[in-house]
């Protein structure tokens, strides 16, 4: 009598065949019996596929293998499930945003545009976003890099570990809370000191501050990670030459970690550019082009929100065009940042 050393296995085409069968049956059930449309077919097909796969595998390969197959199917399925919204969002944004993506959109503001005017654009909002994010970068990059240097190179003991811990905690601060903080701190307490009539002023700069609160932990965290990847031999070599620590850090460690830090900063920019809530609270309302960040300023993400909640029939295409622009900016930044990171020699 021969004992087979390998367990019986389903042929390789079996899952495919079961899948095809499940789709066919599901389509038949939902369209034939009128249970639902394409979405229903998808759900039914998925359920049928899992059930049928489990059944067949159980009969042929035994219960353990059957569970294994179902788990694999579910895990693959989870990934597909996550791609659906991504594709849907991208498709909707491009599809609806395309209509108003013209020269007027990039060349004009919303000044003098009433609800009955078809044109109007996001020029002022783009300027606002660029300035606000730019100022936030100027604030957070030095602060963030120095903070990370402290954590990695100087920090010892309780204070350093507290800082490290709270940098991580700070990444979780909701953006609306950052906005409220700047409202309570800058707008209501500090800005009256600078205004002529002692009244609180909403400004693009306040929005920059709020964005800084959100960007800082991201910059610190990514810089910290990059600094840790700098080989210790470099530092030791430098010390051995008698170069003081601060010079070692600024001339050797930071440049080596440079590309990685840039990546982190770009990711932080991408996050900040997409924030709406803090800008809404502290930046004020301005439909005209404002280059001065100490005035009320719009921003691209707030522009999308504003246009999306406007009743004018011309507003919605503007909102989607704004959303498309925003997504394009943010995704470009993200993709470039990740590609930079991958090319960096320091990454694992």
């Amino acid at each position, binding site marked *: 009598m021969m004992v087979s050393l390998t367990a019986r296995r389903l042929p390789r085409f079996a899952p495919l065949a079961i899948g095809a069968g499940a789709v066919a049956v599901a389509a038949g059930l939902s369209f034939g019996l009128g249970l639902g449309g394409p979405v229903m077919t998808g759900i039914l097909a998925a359920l049928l596929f899992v059930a049928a796969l489990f059944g067949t595998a159980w009969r042929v390969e035994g219960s353990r293998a059957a569970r294994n197959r179902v788990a694999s199917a579910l895990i693959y399925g989870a990934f597909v499930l996550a791609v659906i919204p991504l594709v849907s969002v991208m498709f909707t944004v491009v599809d609806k945003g395309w209509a108003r993506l013209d020269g007027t959109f*990039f*060349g*004009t*503001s919303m*000044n*003098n*545009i*009433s*609800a*009955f005017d078809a*044109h*109007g654009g996001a*020029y*002022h909002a*783009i*300027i606002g976003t*660029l300035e606000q994010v*730019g100022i936030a970068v100027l604030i957070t990059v030095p602060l963030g890099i120095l903070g990370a240097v402290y954590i990695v190179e100087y920090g010892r003991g309780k204070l350093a570990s507290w800082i490290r811990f709270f940098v991580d905690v700070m990444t979780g601060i909701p953006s609306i809370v950052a906005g409220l903080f700047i409202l309570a701190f800058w707008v209501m307490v500090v800005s009256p000191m600078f205004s002529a*009539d002692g*009244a609180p002023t909403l400004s693009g700069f306040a929005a920059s501050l709020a964005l800084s609160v959100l960007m800082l932990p991201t910059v610190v965290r990514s810089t910290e990670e990059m600094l840790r990847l700098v080989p210790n031999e470099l530092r030791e070599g430098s010390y051995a030459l008698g170069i003081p620590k601060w010079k070692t850090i600024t001339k050797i460690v930071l*440049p*080596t970690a*440079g*590309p990685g830090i*840039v990546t982190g900063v770009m990711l932080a920019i991408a996050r900040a550019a997409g924030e709406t809530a803090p800008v809404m609270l502290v930046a*004020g*309302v*301005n439909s*005209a*082009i404002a*280059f001065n960040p100490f005035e009320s300023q719009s921003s691209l993400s707030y522009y999308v929100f504003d246009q*999306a*909640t*406007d*009743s*004018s*029939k011309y*507003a*919605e295409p503007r909102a989607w065009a704004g959303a498309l622009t925003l997504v394009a900016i943010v995704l470009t930044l993200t993709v470039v940042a990740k590609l*930079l990171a991958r090319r960096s020699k320091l990454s694992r």
Partner: protein
Amino acid sequence: MKLQRLGIIAGVGLTATLALTACGSDNTTTKPGATGAAAAKIECAGGTLNVAGSSAQKNAMLEWIKAYKGACKDAKIEYNANGSGAGIQGFTAKTADFAGSDSALKDTEQPAADARCATGKAIHLPMVTGPIAIVFKVDNVDSLQLKPATLAGIFSGKITKWNAPEITADNPGAKLPDAAIQTVHRSDSSGTTENFTDYLTATAKDAWTFGKAKEWKAPGGVGSKGSDGVAADVAKTSGSIGYVEMSFAETAGLKKAKIQNGAGEFTELTPASAAKTVESAEVKGSGDDLKLKIDYNTKAAGAYPLVLVTYEIACSAGNGDKAALIKGFLTYTSSTEGQAQLTKLGYAPLAESVRVKVAAAAAKIAA
């Protein structure tokens, strides 16, 4: 080498910014045809005005500002539609040069506003008549008639289906679907809500038990931010009903319900039918201070009763160097030409008897 890359990135960003800054336009060149006729009537002054207040008059203000700035190159006027409450606060705190408000100053607010005006007084100038439209979106239903009590029942959540007996009774012969009613109300504090609930309190006391307030107090329904939000929500939701100023119903292209007035007629909302209600309003306040008391139960024939009057609250004197511009702008908005601009935006022009008084008061605004 590594810093070079940083430099390239910074360079690209800088170039993009510069390229953008080079070619922006603030739409300041207006079409000559639009303002040419009105321009002759506009009394120009230079300077900058910050105006804040009611979102109900936002569309009117933007149109007026556009026309005024088109005629007067030195004038810069910003209207921030942040709500009547914020407008009054800004006016009192001197961050706004005058305020747009859906309701008159309360007796408790008047002294502070007067104090701000130094030598003058804070006066109410009724400027924009914004009828409140009851907008709805029901599949295959084009017209709808509602009694105040039915309206109150719907918005208080007691009537939940479109084919409820109360609604069918108001609409004899109409085919209404067996669909749930989705009421949409303002989620922010609003003068529109205050006027609408005031109307319901005055006309349907038994069915409406939530009183008059700026905040929505009845249970149920969904809230949406601003008149814009309500209009946009109704436009998107089948089976929904909401209240917005007529102007927003127009911009969103929504269907408006006919409302029963004190004479028992179901009247359609048009600038003319709303103006009839304003005509019957009673002027309170003394001198140049023109507060209006609207009669929601008006028996005037063909009058649409649900009307909101929004004021400009300004200083009669004590405006400093901004006086000329305030006077010029408000004189324009209260002129026949200025008021004529409103009709196409979905507002009702002021009744002539009231307009004359407003124009006279505006002309007296001093430094």
